[in-house]
């Protein structure tokens, strides 16, 4: 007789509710609200808010259910709340974009966004390699489809093609690494893997396995040896999806990476640290230097997101508890800043007929003073200057690096922030110094304005008062590193 494991159904609350919401949304689209964009979006937001409410009874709980397939701890809850917040903002941004571009399959669009969110939540809440893989692929498949939603646009076609093929290759390489790890230990659960790894002969198997596995995650977080897809996909994908890709799947991959490295292979930290140092330096330099000559704003932000992945990877190279706190803080702050930036890019694109060229920002201070001033704040924040939240993200990671004796890595990071200032300030120059092509005031939907308000307030409040978010990331990173 097979022993059926005891299941704690409460632990599934957020994910289960979101799955039900996604399926009901699909049926509502089919039977009642045929392609009714606004109603479907509001239903999707209700689903996400409901899932966020289901997180509340889990606060402070530590436990696992169904073996270790689902882990509930403050780390996973931190990321769940982050993903739900990101998804809500992205849906708000999507409503007017979907209406303007007349997407076929509106209900499927929001369903895919919810599916991607579910995948990300599972990725952050498990310590099993199989579950991490399934969550990763659920996220990826949904994101491939969303990236190609402009079916008639050649750039979007190219985005889905590159994203899909390179994504498949990187996940094949990652699986090859997982198979080595399994072959050596006989387990797929991370803490059991850590126990099985003893003795000198484990070294090579682990190093090979981790290097291959890292290839898959380097693709997802857009770090250097696997970054070529980033600019093309970010440029070709629909703008709200670009905002989603630049923060959501990336944060999920970082979360899974933290679990794999710090639960599965903490003993071998001295080996994988070297890899992360190389990846961090390469990502920072490639991202920042390639961003300078870009004239398309989405392409520029793509390279800047590679650079930001580099700053976060500095935290992995340090690999102390302090550094992981810094990583969580940075991911949350970066999500807020970047969604705000994309809201402004979409507002400007909406007013100037979808144009994403940097010249559309010329003289924005005269056409839309609110957008210009908030964009300037976000640019300063992305460069990591006070009094914005961007400062604290960089500060805690680099401080952790200095405390661990990696002061030269922190110095390289600061040097790169200085380089990045060049292209961020260039955007401000376009908005305030150059003359606009038309004097007509920019007209854009109120939803974009709402998202910009929310994110800019978040950026400034965290910038003045980082305490609460820092406290959250400190308790969430407890036990790692």
């Amino acid at each position, binding site marked *: 007789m*097979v*022993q*059926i*494991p005891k299941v704690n159904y409460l632990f599934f609350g957020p994910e289960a509710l979101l*799955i039900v919401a996604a399926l009901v949304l*699909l049926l509502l689209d089919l039977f009642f609200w045929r392609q009714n964009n606004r109603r479907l979006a509001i239903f999707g937001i209700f689903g996400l808010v409901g899932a966020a409410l289901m997180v509340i009874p889990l606060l402070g709980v530590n436990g696992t259910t*169904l*073996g270790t*397939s*689902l882990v509930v701890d403050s780390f996973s809850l931190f990321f769940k709340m982050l993903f739900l917040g990101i998804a809500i903002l992205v849906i708000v941004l999507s409503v007017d974009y979907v209406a303007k571009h007349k997407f*076929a*399959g509106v209900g*499927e669009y929001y*369903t*895919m966004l919810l*599916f991607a969110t*579910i*995948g990300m939540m*599972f990725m952050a809440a*498990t310590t*099993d390699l*199989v*579950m991490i893989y*399934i*969550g990763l*692929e*659920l996220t990826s*498949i*949904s994101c*491939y*489809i969303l990236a*190609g*939603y402009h*079916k008639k646009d050649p750039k979007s076609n190219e985005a*889905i093609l590159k994203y899909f093929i390179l994504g498949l290759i990187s996940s094949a390489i990652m699986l090859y690494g997982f198979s*080595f790890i399994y*072959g*050596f230990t*006989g387990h797929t659960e991370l803490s059991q893997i850590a126990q099985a790894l003893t003795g000198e*002969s484990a070294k*090579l*198997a682990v190093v*090979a396995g981790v290097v291959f596995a890292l290839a898959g995650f380097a693709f997802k977080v857009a770090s250097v040896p696997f970054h070529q897809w980033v600019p093309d996909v970010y440029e070709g994908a629909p703008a709200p999806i670009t905002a989603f890709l630049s923060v959501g799947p990336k944060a999920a991959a970082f979360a899974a990476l933290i679990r794999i490295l710090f639960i599965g292979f903490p003993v071998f930290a001295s080996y994988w640290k070297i890899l992360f140092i190389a990846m961090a330096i390469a990502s920072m330099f490639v991202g920042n230097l390639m961003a300078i000559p870009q004239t398309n704003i989405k392409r520029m932000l793509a390279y800047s997101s590679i650079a930001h992945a580099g700053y976060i990877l500095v935290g992995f190279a340090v690999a102390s508890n302090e550094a992981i706190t810094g990583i969580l803080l940075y991911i949350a702050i970066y999500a807020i800043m970047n969604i705000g930036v994309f809201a402004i890019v979409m507002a400007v694109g909406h007013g100037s007929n979808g144009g994403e060229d940097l010249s559309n920002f010329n003289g924005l201070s005269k056409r839309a003073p609110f957008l210009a001033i908030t964009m300037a704040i976000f640019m300063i924040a992305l460069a990591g200057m006070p009094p914005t939240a961007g400062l604290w993200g960089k500060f805690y990671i680099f401080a952790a690096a200095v405390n661990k004796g990696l002061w030269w890595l922190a110095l390289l990071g600061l040097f790169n922030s200085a380089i990045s200032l060049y292209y961020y300030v260039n955007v401000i120059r376009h908005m305030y110094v150059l003359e606009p092509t038309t004097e007509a005031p920019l007209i854009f939907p109120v939803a974009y304005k709402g998202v910009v308000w929310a994110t800019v307030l978040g950026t400034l409040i965290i910038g003045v008062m980082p305490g609460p978010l820092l406290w959250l990331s400190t308790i969430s990173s407890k036990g790692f590193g």
Partner: protein
Amino acid sequence: MTVASAIFYFFAAILIFFSIKVVTTKNLFHSVMSAFAVLLGTAGLFFLFNAEFLGIVQILIYAGAVTILVLFVVMLTTAGPKYRIVWETPLNIWIFVFVILFGGMLGMIVLSIQWPVAKPVALHGVTEALATRLFVEYLLPFEVASILLLAALIGSIVLARRD
């Protein structure tokens, strides 16, 4: 040489021959058929390694479902120019060199690791044991995989339908 290892070498030869054919042949149709030969050959190896369930699933999915699907797509989309592999470009030579080095490195790594090996035993009821594992230890991934299939299904319809 035992019967088992003779079977293994036979399948290994098939796998390598046809996988080279997938990569080098100029005819799209032949390439797809060679890929299925490789996948079926792997199913044979699965039977050899006491993974009957996987072998049958491999045959059902790849020979039964995927072949038809891929061949339909090939027929629908080959009205374009002739497909052929271009060996002359220097980039491909670099990729070739890179892949040779990569493969060599893989081989070296594999050979120099001391894998923990027990005596292989032929086991009855592997499928039953597999099912127990699948529905006890890996129940959650199994359920989430159904969401994944649904996502791929909806996505394929959205992308491929005419509108």
